[in-house]
């Protein structure tokens, strides 16, 4: 079961190779992702995250190193097959909405892959149900909120029944409510289907939900590990320009102020639980 779904081997990519002064956007990067994992890829702006996403599905090809996905080496011939098993959602909710209405947009990838009409109707319904947007079949994009548009984009990716879903800062342009909707959708999807998810973000609260975090800095992998492991190196993250989740910052500040808290708290609930039981446990 634990098979590798995607791997990078010593991948280096530079946008303008002719210009020697330009540093590679991704440098000697290696990692692999297991089937069913939820990976968070974090790093500050310009650290190479989007470039990695584009290398993952063959929008860009590495100058050195190898990218493999779904058991195939990424190449011109395998490209479309790999893409059909991989969904991708981008940052701007408006700029990825192709169809005139919600259902047209969800059907777009199916049309491209030549899925027969009856099957399409079923799959559009099914994927919209998965993101709880089935009541919006005929809605036009400008009548939807950002969070709703992103959920439609996720449905559009799911319609092809992909094995891997990549979200490139899919929540960064949303208001807190929209962000919650999208994160909740991903969580439920993972529970229901065990889909492999790579979420690219610079929101460490979102990253805390993942199984494993990769921290990028200047095109290189800086840290890798479970959220607990990664967040332990708190100061290092701060120097990389990343903000620790609120509950962790609070914990640190309380500890500095002399409150004897036990360990780290990645969610607000955990912190609150420790605080309200603080005196009784003393």
């Amino acid at each position, binding site marked *: 079961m634990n098979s590798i779904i995607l791997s990078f081997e010593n991948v280096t990519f530079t946008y303008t190779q002719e210009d020697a002064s330009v540093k590679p956007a991704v440098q000697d990067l290696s990692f692999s992702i297991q089937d069913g994992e939820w990976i968070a890829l974090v790093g500050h702006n310009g650290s190479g995250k989007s470039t990695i996403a584009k290398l993952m599905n063959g929008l860009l090809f590495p100058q050195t190193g190898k990218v493999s996905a779904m058991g195939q080496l990424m190449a011109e011939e395998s490209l479309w097959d790999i893409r059909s098993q991989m969904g991708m959602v981008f940052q701007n909710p408006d700029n990825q909405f192709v169809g*005139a209405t919600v259902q047209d947009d969800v059907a777009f*990838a*199916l049309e*491209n892959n030549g899925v*027969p009409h009856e099957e399409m109707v079923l799959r559009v319904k099914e994927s919209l149900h998965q993101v709880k947007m089935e009541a919006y079949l005929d809605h036009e994009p*400008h009548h939807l909120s950002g969070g709703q548009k992103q959920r439609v984009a996720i449905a559009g990716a799911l319609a*092809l029944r992909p094995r891997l879903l990549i979200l490139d800062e899919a929540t960064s342009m949303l208001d807190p409510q929209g962000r919650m909707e999208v994160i909740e959708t991903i969580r439920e999807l993972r529970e229901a289907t065990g889909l492999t998810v790579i979420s690219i973000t610079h929101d460490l609260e979102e990253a805390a939900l993942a199984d494993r975090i990769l921290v990028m800095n200047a095109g290189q992998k800086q840290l890798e590990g479970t959220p607990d492991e990664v967040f332990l190196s708190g100061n290092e993250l701060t120097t990389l320009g990343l903000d620790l989740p609120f509950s962790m910052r609070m914990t640190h500040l309380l500890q500095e102020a002399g409150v004897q808290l036990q360990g780290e708290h990645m969610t607000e609930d955990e912190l609150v639980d420790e605080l309200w039981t603080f005196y009784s446990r003393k």
Partner: protein
Amino acid sequence: MMEKMIFGRFIPGDSIIHRMDPRAKILFVFVFIAIVFIANSAVTYGILLGFTLLVVFLSKIRLYFLINGLKPVFILLIFTFLLHIFFTREGDLLVDIGFIEIYEEGLRQGIFISIRFLVLVFITSILTLTTSPISITDGIEVLLGPFKRVKLPVHELALMMSISLRFIPTLMDETGKILKAQMARGSDIGSGPVKERIKAVVPLLIPLFVSAFKRAEDLATAMEVRGYRGGEGRTRYRQLDWRFKDSLSLLVLAGLAGMLWYFRV
């Protein structure tokens, strides 16, 4: 003013006309345009007007709404009417007050041309009012299908049309935002001499263009990621459904043509 304009607007509904196949409606309009030119007498123009009003009635779009929305067209209509009245000098002299002379033939021609104009505008408006832009696009794509043989990029044209339609509201919103942003910086588009106003539009257009290009790039990436490789081997999600009533509508039109031909003088 802009809200009342009904050019290119779509009013959702479920009348017989709304439920017609877009291909039938497009064909209907084109055939109708040709048929209108058969009319040449009071009776035939009367029939045309009656038929048009019947179509409007069937579409369940209120006549008042239609007339109100087409106000700018009426100005043009009145202008052509007056042009005919004053410049045709045939038949009996009806009115003669100083320099204004109105002849019988002029009045007749004026009325006929006005009716012709009116029915054409009404019928085409009914087409756009009762058919969503995306259905019109679908209809055009299928109707133009045969021209693929002569290398007309039908699929690409239809996709371009539907994406443009999809982005109109987005870009309108954006224009509004930029306008406000520039106004907040002291730019004044609403007043001043024309030259100044035109100059003030430039800082509006440039950010709009920059963002439109950015959007186009993002959209192209999103399309490629979702497996878009041109029209080849693509299936269609939207299916058109040609029914008996669609054939019937074209038959009715043939009947109309026959009737006009019969009563023609």
